[in-house]
């Protein structure tokens, strides 16, 4: 759905993007995670060409945006929704007026606009608030207006620029839940950038981790969790490093409630010493990670058994 290849963006002497490739599949929520200054914001703004990349191409829904002239680009942008960290609502307009803005840009007739605005406000849970001024809304409500506005043109893609970074944790969760619902119900592809691992954990199917203008690793969360030594796993499940000699790290995907460890203890007569670990609910299901050391019994056999039960041993 979104494909970026070889993106470079240079401002004077600063290299903001240094050869970034990105592939977002249709219908997924893709997170770009990184510290501020990692280049993720530039990357997002290159996707709808708010920033024109110094080199590289961007294709959204099969259309090469970098090849378009400005009029065509504007029409393409109408099919790409965007939400912003500080909401970017027009204070001179009511809530309904803000949602109507993109429809006006698209030349939708008034009656149709009013019908669509009411529909969109209902969709984001703000039915009946159309006449209010944005200044009277809470942060979470403002972002809901931003989302309604971004959906006005029936976009296939939604870009989210740190959309929850200005919100408190409870509001962040409710906005993420709304995004997840839109993703499921409307089949909306979402590309979001964030510096919060929590956002990635709660809604993302795939992730790219960025640092210094490059993508350090990317892929579906399920795959990255199963990749030994991936940064994502280390960051989601911090275990003391370096691992003590003789210890092994077990990663449980699938159902972490299976009593695999106690089964191992009974079958192979080993003592299991748990050094650390945690279980996290990720978008694709629960994942657990344990660091253990075995003593006595058949250690090799125990490890083989664990592997045979789908546990990743490293």
């Amino acid at each position: 759905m979104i494909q970026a290849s070889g993106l470079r963006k240079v401002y004077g002497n600063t290299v903001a993007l240094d050869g970034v490739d990105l592939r977002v599949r249709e219908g997924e929520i893709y997170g770009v995670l990184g510290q501020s200054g990692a280049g993720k914001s530039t990357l997002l703004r290159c996707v709808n060409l708010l920033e024109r990349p110094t080199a590289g191409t961007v294709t959204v829904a099969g259309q090469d945006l970098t090849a378009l002239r400005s009029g065509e680009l504007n029409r393409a942008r109408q099919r790409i929704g965007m939400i912003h960290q500080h909401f970017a609502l027009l204070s001179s307009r009511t809530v309904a007026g803000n949602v109507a803005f993109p429809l006006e840009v698209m030349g939708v007739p008034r009656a149709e606009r009013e019908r669509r605005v009411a529909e969109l406000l209902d969709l984001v849970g703000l039915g009946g608030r159309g006449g209010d001024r944005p200044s009277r809304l809470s942060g979470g409500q403002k972002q809901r207006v931003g989302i309604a506005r971004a959906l006005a043109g029936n976009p296939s893609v939604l870009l989210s620029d740190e959309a929850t970074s200005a919100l408190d944790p409870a509001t962040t969760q409710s906005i993420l839940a709304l995004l997840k619902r839109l993703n499921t119900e409307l089949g909306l592809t979402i590309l979001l950038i964030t510096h919060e691992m929590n956002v990635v954990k709660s809604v993302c199917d795939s992730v790219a981790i960025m640092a210094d203008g490059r993508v350090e690793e990317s892929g579906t969360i399920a795959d990255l969790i199963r990749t030994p030594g991936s940064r994502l796993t280390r960051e989601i499940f911090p275990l003391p490093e370096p691992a003590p000699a003789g210890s092994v790290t077990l990663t449980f995907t699938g159902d972490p409630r299976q009593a695999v460890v106690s089964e191992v203890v009974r079958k192979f007569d080993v003592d299991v010493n748990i050094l650390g670990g945690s279980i996290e609910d990720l978008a694709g299901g629960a994942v657990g990670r344990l660091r253990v050391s075995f003593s006595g019994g058949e250690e090799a056999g125990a490890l083989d058994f664990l592997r045979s039960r789908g546990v990743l041993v490293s």
Partner: protein
Amino acid sequence: MTWDEMGPLLWEAAGQTAQMVGWSTLFTVLFGLPLGVALVVFDRGGLRPAPALKSVLGVVVNVGRSLPFIVLMIAIIPFTRLVVGTTIGTAAVVVPLTVGAVPFFARLVETALREVGADVVQAAQAMGAGRTTIVRKVLLPEALPGLVAAVTVTVVALIGYSAMAGTIGGGGLGDLAVRYGYQRFETLLMIVTVVLLVVLVQLIQSLGDLVARRLSHK
């Protein structure tokens, strides 16, 4: 001088001031608003960056603003004749008043437009809005309270400038104060004129503030 004698004089002068200020405000907004928009749009990082053009406009505006009004009024007499066909009288004053106020107003417009958040403009760009739409539907409406304040300040400045209109026979309250209050020692008339001007400026400023506040939904 009695109140009965002062009445008609004041009435006529007030009418001339209103005419001069009214017309020149209208023309100032007409020419100054697009100029102010141009200063923002053509700026580096603006909607349509054209730094060379912006520099030229900037210099023109600064030249306009560096001339004292009374000098400007005399200096552009040939231009005034070209526009209104005469160089004396109330109509003739409207030309230099407008020429003097346009650069001033344009700078105020520029400042007001710069107050509009860059994120709002970018959001509109991300929605596929063209430059004209962004100016008409984002920049100007969002800056409206600031623009109203700019008009208010300009009207007050124009009332001040118009006091010099007597130099080319434009009349008005300022001219009345100079001719009667200063040259003929009519102290009472001087005081009345001063009070009238103070009240007038107060009224205009309060009205402008009120409107700007009503329009602001920050």
